[in-house]
């Protein structure tokens, strides 16, 4: 695979056992109305969503994740998005044990209308930065809104639409 290829396959979207982003539906304006499933990240508490992913056709480059999102009500201010990876190497990583997630982050400004979408990216370099995740392996890709980061000034929920991952 080469740069730009979609090497991250999302297999499941899993709310963590606590502090999960709220699963919500955002209605579109068409007839019949679209009913878009979104994950609401609160503006005043830490919330997370886990994506079980497989790395497929990966060629030892870095990874670039895109976080498509809209705002529930705000049209100004920034959201601080963070992503971290927990790799499940063959016969090595025990899910029962705790893992310290090491986040990479981006601060992104709300779109100018609350139904519009933004596409910020978070990058990882090959190796420890992405928990040494290797081709063919599963991993949990955890997404977090760091509500009390100095950059996170946007009021109200940030609605995550999904997760895209490319090799870079």
């Amino acid at each position, binding site marked *: 695979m080469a740069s730009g290829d979609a090497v991250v396959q999302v297999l499941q979207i899993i709310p963590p056992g606590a502090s999960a982003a709220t699963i919500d539906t955002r209605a579109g304006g068409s007839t019949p109305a679209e009913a878009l499933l979104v994950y609401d990240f609160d503006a*005043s508490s830490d919330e997370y969503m886990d994506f079980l992913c497989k790395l497929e056709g990966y060629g030892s480059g870095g990874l670039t994740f895109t976080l498509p999102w809209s705002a*529930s009500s*705000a*049209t*100004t*201010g920034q959201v601080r998005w963070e992503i971290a990876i927990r790799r499940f190497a063959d016969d090595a990583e025990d899910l029962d044990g705790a893992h310290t997630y090491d986040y990479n982050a981006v601060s992104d400004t709300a779109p100018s209308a609350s139904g519009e979408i933004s596409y910020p990216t978070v990058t990882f370099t090959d190796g420890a930065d992405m928990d040494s995740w290797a081709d063919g392996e599963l991993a949990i890709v955890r997404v977090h809104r760091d509500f009390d980061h100095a950059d*996170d000034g946007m*009021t*109200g*929920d940030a609605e995550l639409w999904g997760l895209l991952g490319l090799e870079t």
Partner: protein
Amino acid sequence: MTTLPTADRTKVFRGIMRYWSQERSTISGINKSDLQSAIDATDNWIDQNQADYVASLPATFRNNSTPAQKILLFCVVATMRASAALAQRLIGGLD
């Protein structure tokens, strides 16, 4: 009357953001710090002006209603200015 404790102001801060998010009520040009300052200013204004409000009430109501009833009356009238549906939720019925 005193101002709300910080914890209660925080509850208002969190709650109103969640309400606006649910309602998808567009909030433009306001960051979280601006909203927190506005909540603080509103609570301070109520604290500083509550005596004037009570004094403005007709004597019969002023002298025979409880403090909680005076506050509820203020809230319902103010809420009606923003949203009849929300006022209805406060008191259970509007007709």
